[in-house]
């Protein structure tokens, strides 16, 4: 187990370093320098270059860059809000994004699990078909389409929820974005739960449990669902990542002051420094989630661990 975790941690660190290298190279390739203000003369420019260490060899610059990024010093924003440290920009926005993302994952996982259970327990009935239709639509309609429909119907027409995010009604205005983000998670979890549950319900140990006289709730929840849940954990990781992509557009639609809309703004106003910092944060979050899920999965299911150690 230790060997497995060690290997996974090492790969993750290496991946992060590769990403930093790519980002660093991109920074060098980006058109224009942050200091191409025409008012600056050569000596001023040299001072600025010295201040930000741009006059040193590339290798030294890279290691300095790695150190800065890892300690949370992302530099300053050039266009969005001039000379504000990016870490400060992100610090106020990240909690909002995480809250909405968390609500979406929670909602999606819960509803998806229930839908999948209903479908599996009422296999080949009308309930099964309804759940299948819901999950196929959820998988194939992008989250921002849901966001547009929800914001038009419930925000603009019925006025049940605020159409745009407002900090005063943080909770009320988080519902619509969370629901639209959760649709994909919900649908995927429902599909997975259904497949896994049907497999588990068919297994010999379920037959044994049933013949021992267990019935109803205990049989389903403590015997079937527990085993069906294991593979579901693996799909959660990629789902959270899809959620990040979705959050960009959904945050823009609902005008949520989160990291997603910050990234969209940065892209649109060519604020490369912010884009690259956010790319780093997204990658780091992604790698961390993948690492945790892989280790969790190894802990729960020894077969995975052994197979990966062997290779």
């Amino acid at each position, binding site marked *: 187990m230790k060997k497995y975790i060690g290997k996974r941690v090492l*790969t993750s660190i290496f991946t992060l370093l590769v*990403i930093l290298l790519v980002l660093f190279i991109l920074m060098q390739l980006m058109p224009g320098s942050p200091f191409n203000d025409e008012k600056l003369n050569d000596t001023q420019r040299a001072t600025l270059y010295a201040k930000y260490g741009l006059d040193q060899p590339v290798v030294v610059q890279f290691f300095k860059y790695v150190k800065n990024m890892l300690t949370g010093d992302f530099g300053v924003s050039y266009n969005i809000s001039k000379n504000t440290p990016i870490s400060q920009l992100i610090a106020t926005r990240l909690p909002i994004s995480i809250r909405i993302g968390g609500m979406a994952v929670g909602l999606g996982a819960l509803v998806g699990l229930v839908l999948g259970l209903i479908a599996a327990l009422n296999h080949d009935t009308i309930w099964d078909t309804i759940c299948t239709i819901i999950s196929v639509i959820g998988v*194939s*309609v992008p989250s921002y389409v849901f966001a547009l429909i929800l914001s*038009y119907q419930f925000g603009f027409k019925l006025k049940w929820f605020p159409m745009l995010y407002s900090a005063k009604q943080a909770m009320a205005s988080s519902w619509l974005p969370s629901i639209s983000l959760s649709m994909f998670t919900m649908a995927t979890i429902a599909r997975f739960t259904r497949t896994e549950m049907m497999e588990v319900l068919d297994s010999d140990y379920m037959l044994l449990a049933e013949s021992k006289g267990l019935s109803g709730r205990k049989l389903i929840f403590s015997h079937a669902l527990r085993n069906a849940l294991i593979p579901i954990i693996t799909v959660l990781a990629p789902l959270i990542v899809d959620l990040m*992509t979705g959050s960009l557009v959904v945050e823009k639609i609902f005008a949520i002051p989160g990291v997603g809309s910050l990234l*969209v703004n940065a892209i649109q106003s060519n604020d490369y420094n912010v884009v690259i910092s956010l790319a780093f944060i997204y990658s780091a979050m992604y790698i961390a989630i993948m690492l945790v899920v892989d280790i969790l999965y190894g802990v729960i299911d020894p077969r995975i661990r052994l197979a990966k150690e062997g290779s």
Partner: protein
Amino acid sequence: MSKAKTQAVQTFTPQKPYTPVDSDFVLKSDAAIEVDRNFASQSVWKDVTTRFRRKKSGVVGLWIVFIIIFFAIIGPHMNGYDYSAQDLKSKNLAPRVPGIERMGIFNGDEKMSTSTGTKTTNLYEEEGLDDTYYWFGSDRYGRDIWTRTWQGARVSLIIAVAATIIDMVIGMSYGLISGYFGGKVDMVMQRILEIMNGIPRLVIVTLLLLILKPGMLTIIFALMLTEWVGMSRIARAEMLKLKEQEFVLASKTLGARPFHIIFAEILPNIIGPIITQVMFSIPTAIFTEAFLSFVGLGIPVPQCSLGSLISDGYNSFTTHPYQIVAPIVVMALLMLSFNLIGDGLREALDPKMKEM
């Protein structure tokens, strides 16, 4: 034993041993060889087609895709409008279709929400445009949304299909080679893959489009860089299943080279799962393209894709909702249908697997 049976046994087990005659050793002509029609052998693909047809949702998906492709080809030329021609005199007109307009729908009426309530206006009548018909309405520059929707569907489909085919070739070759050679080659190739997989796609695509000029080729390139990983996983898994089988051994014994075995012997056997994966990759590509357009990194104007149309319509979707409906419906249908086809194919190719 009944009499008839005894007789039958006697005829089939004669007392005298059978003496062959010359005619037994003459080769039969093609015409003389009879085919077993009762238990006719079926090719794998015929089997798959039958099973696919049985699954209604897959067939429906296939039809919808065909219909959308048909309109994507002829749709932009069906009325006199050009997808990029602007006409500022007729902007923001609601959908109006000749014939159907008498039934009270698609007659150019538009409900406007004002502070005092809703009122119905008809810009065609107000502007005196009696002979003008915009089937899906016109946008804020007076461009025909019907033409633009199908033009957009065409662009989105081209991007998605091209990117997916390139992905398929790259991912498949990578996975097959990695799986076939195994050992050190596999180790190195899989580590590279792990690192590629560790970088979020969103980050790669966004950064790539920032340095390269946005355009159709750039988007295809960005999609190509990100989507091949999944494909290579499947190809490798299939290769690991197949490479120990007898036909590979036979081929090796006959002196076939590794690349002949990989691409001529094994590839045809794994084409099923690969095609299924392609069907699931296309909607992902369509979605990513739409997402990029929404963020502002998509197809540059005056060209349009489904994503850029949705993003245009979004700007005025509370005042003129019809502008966003057509592209959204086409895109949702397209993604839904490809998913349905993928599901159907997966079940048809692997009847043991019962998935939703």
